[in-house]
């Protein structure tokens, strides 16, 4: 800005000195160069814009248009993930660098279709709806960059959300073919359903070098604390069903079990609990008369009675989330959405986003072995705690589970917080629902400190022009032994403050003394209060009925033995 300003100011002085024919000559030359430049610019941009405009304006791009990449059989396979990986050993922090916004830059690889030498795709489903949603959400977020050279984190467009649909070896080869793969450094993979029969590993089986894994079913043995991110298993019902938020409070049922894939031993255990505690428990299973599919997923049955799922979840205080073959269960998401307190029975399971979320305030974790004691354990929880958990559960769903966008952005935020820990979001920011954020008071001076007397205090006196009363205040306050400094704020532009000790008379002083009794003054102040309250969104002032006095205030006690004998004597 500065440089341009200077240049243009010199311009007019130069031109008049030139002869007219020269001027014309130069202007022509300049125009030619300028036109040339514009033409080059058009040429550079034109083809892109045509293509993009045609494609994007109507959102007609198809996944089938993705370029095909053939994987040679001998194509290299990444190493299996290193369990010792941590941010300081396997992550290149230099790529993220220092930036004033403390925000990482995330690059997404363009979609490609990987096939083996025979032309068979590496995945039976290709890009899933959820992974597509996740990537578009990230590309719309502030983390996104389309400049691969400036990226700190790379996200492949190879969909590995569900391991079942993958060909492990070929997927791994495809990862290794990514242009910036570099041993998986700074690459992030999203996987919600890891492992496969019969053992169901708790982390994605695809070899992935040093890539970070955002996984949906980690156990304490596969989770690399501070490196991987534990994410929820997204429930497709989230997008389909709307459950209005319910006020926390007691529900029709105490415990509800609604999962269909429960091991028979556990189901037997639940049946036993049901026998002991009767109506308080509702034990649902899939409906035998319905065929599989989307419709069946939204019904549950008990002894021939049909219930709507997930709506029925709202009718219970606690909802059981038992491990299946995998530790992560989509049911957790449904349960939270319903504002039902999840009772999680999945030994060694790393709860979603456990790095930042305080699950103790939103769930009950019970060892699988203690399933039979579940009822007793839950009964011992105070009602008010159950209500707080219900509210907390719903908030977790809304903020971190409700969409692929929420899941993706939360994952990136967690990684961001590790790279810029001094700018990390706080516990309160992660865990307090908006209603608590509004009503809670967190004093900036939270440490219970009783300051020593030695430093004393600074008196700040605001004055307009009532000099006499100002001097009176100054005289009185300067007698106080603890006074360290006295600051007078002269709040009058029309008069300059009196100098030194000079006293001058103020005729209107006595008149203004009655200021606070003035009617309009009170009205103005009431208006202020209303305005402030509306801006704060709440009335932060609190009414108390007490006043602090010295211990012996107005007691029948020799005045000279009192520390503060003069108080109240005015």
């Amino acid at each position, binding site marked *: 800005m500065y440089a341009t300003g200077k240049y243009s100011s010199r311009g007019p002085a130069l031109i008049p000195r030139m002869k007219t024919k020269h001027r014309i000559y130069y202007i022509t030359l300049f125009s030619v160069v300028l036109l040339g430049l514009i033409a080059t610019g058009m040429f550079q941009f034109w083809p892109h814009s045509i293509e993009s405009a045609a494609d994007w304006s109507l959102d007609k791009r198809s996944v089938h248009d993705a370029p095909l990449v053939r994987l040679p059989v001998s194509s290299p396979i990444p190493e299996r993930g290193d369990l010792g990986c941590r941010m300081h050993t396997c992550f290149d922090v230099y790529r993220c660098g220092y930036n004033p916004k403390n925000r990482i830059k995330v690059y997404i690889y363009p979609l490609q279709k990987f096939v083996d030498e025979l032309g068979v795709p590496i995945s039976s489903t290709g890009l899933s709806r959820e992974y597509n949603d996740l990537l578009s959400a990230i590309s719309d977020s502030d983390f996104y960059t389309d400049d691969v050279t400036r990226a700190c984190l790379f996200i492949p467009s190879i969909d590995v959300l569900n391991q079942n649909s993958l060909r492990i070896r070929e997927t791994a080869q495809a990862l290794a073919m990514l242009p910036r793969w570099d041993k998986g450094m700074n690459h992030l993979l999203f996987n919600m359903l890891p492992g496969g029969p019969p053992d169901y590993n708790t982390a994605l089986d695809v070899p992935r070098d040093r890539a970070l894994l955002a996984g949906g079913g980690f156990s304490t043995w596969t989770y690399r604390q501070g490196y991987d991110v534990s994410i929820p298993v997204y429930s497709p019902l989230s997008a389909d069903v709307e459950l209005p938020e319910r006020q926390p409070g007691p529900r029709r049922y105490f415990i509800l079990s609604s999962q269909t894939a429960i091991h028979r031993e556990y189901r037997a255990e639940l049946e036993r609990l049901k026998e002991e505690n009767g109506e308080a428990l509702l034990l649902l299973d899939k409906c035998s008369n319905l065929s599989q599919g989307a419709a069946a997923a939204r019904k549950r049955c008990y002894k021939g009675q049909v219930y709507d799922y997930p709506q029925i979840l709202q009718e219970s205080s606690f909802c059981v989330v038992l491990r299946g073959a995998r530790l992560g269960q989509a049911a957790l998401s449904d349960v939270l959405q319903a504002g039902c307190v999840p009772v999680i029975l999945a030994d060694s399971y790393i709860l979603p986003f456990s790095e930042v979320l305080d699950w103790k305030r939103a769930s009950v974790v019970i060892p699988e072995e203690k399933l039979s004691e579940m009822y007793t354990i839950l009964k011992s929880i105070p009602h008010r705690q159950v209500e707080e958990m219900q509210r907390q559960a719903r908030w977790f769903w809304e903020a971190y589970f409700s969409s692929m966008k929420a899941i993706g952005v939360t994952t990136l935020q967690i990684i961001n917080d590790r790279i810029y820990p001094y700018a990390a979001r706080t516990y309160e920011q992660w865990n307090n629902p908006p209603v608590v954020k509004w009503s809670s*008071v967190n004093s900036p001076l939270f440490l219970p*400190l009783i300051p020593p007397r030695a430093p004393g205090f600074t008196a700040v006196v605001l004055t307009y022009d009532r000099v006499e009363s100002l001097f009176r205040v100054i005289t009185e306050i300067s007698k106080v032994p603890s006074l360290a400094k006295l600051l007078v704020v002269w709040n009058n532009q029309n008069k300059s403050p009196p100098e030194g000790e000079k006293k001058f008379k103020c005729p209107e002083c006595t008149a203004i003394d009655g200021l606070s009794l003035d009617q309009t003054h009170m009205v103005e102040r009431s208006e202020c209060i209303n305005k402030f309250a509306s801006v704060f969104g709440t009335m932060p002032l609190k009414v108390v009925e007490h006043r602090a006095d010295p211990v012996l*205030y107005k007691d029948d006690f020799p005045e000279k033995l009192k520390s503060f004998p003069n108080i109240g004597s005015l």
Partner: protein
Amino acid sequence: MQAKKRYLILLSAGACLVLLSYLGGVQLPAASRSRHDRSRNGYRPDQPWPHFSDPLHLFLPWDETDTEEYNLHISPRQKRDVNTSVYKGKRCRMDSCFDFSLCHKNGFKVYVYPQQKGEKISESYQNILSTIEGSRFYTSDPGQACLFVLSLDTLDRDQLSPQYVHNLKTKVQNLPLWNDGRNHLIFNLYSGTWPDYTEDLGFDIGQAMLAKASISTENFRRNFDVSIPLFSKEHPRTGGERGYLKYNSIPPFRKYMLVFKGKRYLTGIGSDTRNALHHVHNAEDVVLLTTCKHGKDWQKHKDARCDKDNAEYDKYDYKEMLHNSTFCLVPRGRRLGSFRFLEALQAACVPVMLSNGWELPFSEIIDWNTAAVIGDERLLLQIPTTVRSIHQDKILSLRQQTQFLWEAYFSSVEKIVLTTLEIIQDRVLEHGSRSSLMWNSHPGGLFALPQYSGYLGDFPFYYATLGIKPYPKFTAVIHAVSPLVSQSQPILKLLVAVAKSQYCAQIIVLWNCDKPLPAKHRWPATSVPVIVIEGENKVMSSRFLPYETIVTDAVLSLDEDTVLSTTEVDFAFTVWQSFPERIVGYPARSHFWDSNKERWGYTSKWTNDYSMVLTGAAIYHRYYHHLYTNYLPTSLKSMVDQLANCEDILMNFLVSAVTKLPPIKVTQKKQYKETMMGQVKSSRASRWADPDHFAQRQTCMNKFASWFGAMPLVHSQMRLDPVLFKDQVSILRKKYRDIERL
């Protein structure tokens, strides 16, 4: 024509410049431009991720269930057993290497092996063992124990150290209860030795848990081991010094921004970062000093920088820098942790960690981002910029948090050991464990017992954080010790007066009198329920038992001879609602340091300040009943019971130890003072008249102070009065006018 040429050159140069910047710049701004354009008019030149229009598969097809195969597979119980046998050694977790059943029988009890003759134990380890033996977790019966602690000193496993215990391997294997280390906890401060300082302890720990300093994230078995801070042998066993922050200064900047003073090792590991510190040192507000002087033969290895660095090093005083710096650099040394970490914490100098891979102390429960700056050794050169970018509000908060954490978990060996045990207890009693908020906010996890309640709103500490208020009623607990003989006895008057309070929910009469319970009709009829509980042992401490019948947050504790009016009760309760974590009461007492006798003194004189209010007439949170009963050691409680005295002093000690604040005295009618001071009639007054009574209270004070490790009581000069109290306005305008009337 000179001018013409000049213009020509100027112009072409300009054109070239434009062209160059155009070609160079076209790549970089593309990103921002494209995003900008897109949001403005939907035009997407280089679309980041296309919004595909074709129907895509769900990642989890509706019909894909995992039941079938799962059900055919082994039963979940078998699967758990498989885990237990597979995950051992480095992969130990509570699920696989810990026997929970030992804890479920008798609760969380800790057994310490008896000390063997001829085994030397370092002072630090002795402190650890005595802390456990003095704690409420201790059991002398291994059959009751859930956790076992060795009497063999494992703190220093540096072979070159004089404290090193030899043949530990055989000694441990020969322990009859060792059981491959299952449910054992091993404390360690130093492991490995020059030059590589590995984390090996030099003996097979089997399935034992480690409570270890300087543990690395690679070796740390999460939710199994506990990372503890490195502490010196001078670290006090109990109590411990307070943090150095006496008051908050705003703006929070100190003389220096960032300081460090320490050794630079010329041989062996640990100095990669320290070697580079001089690049960042500016001798003004960033003062990072190293010395090469260590060991006898440092000069043999000295490098080109040594002389210059050593000279600069000697110019500054470590303590002076520590107390006058906003941030303190804590780089790794030989090992990942250093004493410097605790020193900085205590000095309210926000630690800037440069120790990649160090699992910070008590990382399982402490959110270190609230009290420290976790730097990355690789980004050393960015550190000054980083700390300068931290907003002053954040510095203020970081600094206060250092003080909170220091005093809550680190200031004594006792706190470090108890925190370790509480962390393990939280894992064992998983559904009744502390939330992160309880660990990371005042008064900290050691004072917030999850056995009391899992709900934060049931504690006196979190109302403001949760944005809620305590329950607006109280339960009165009257401690009755004399038989009911006449209808004019003070207890009956008291009962009626209290019952009339609009905030009274119920009255509990705790019958601690040897005479049998009076018949029901002898109690006056009141509008609130009166519950009479017969004290089982009729001891003093029973007045502070956490009775389940107390359903309100507030307890009004009363002696049977207390004289109170309904107005006084109402007023005190409204005051308590503003200070739910403190004791709010009427008659006050004070403590002082008697320098002649070198002990604490107790005074009931009518003075200008006080540090206790008597629990014969006081309102406090019911949580303190739980804390009194479960937190305090049996030794103190039985002392109170034997003397039938001092229970109120102990309660004041406890509450002030938790809050670090004085109690609150509210104004009272004159007559009550006279009853208390004049010691007229009534059996209780005789207790106060006893000359021994006063001496006992003196003794109690000193006994309590020694158990707490410091004097927790705090003085106050403030009394809370009703707003118009004794003001020159019509008495009719005053809400609590009865308090002024005689």
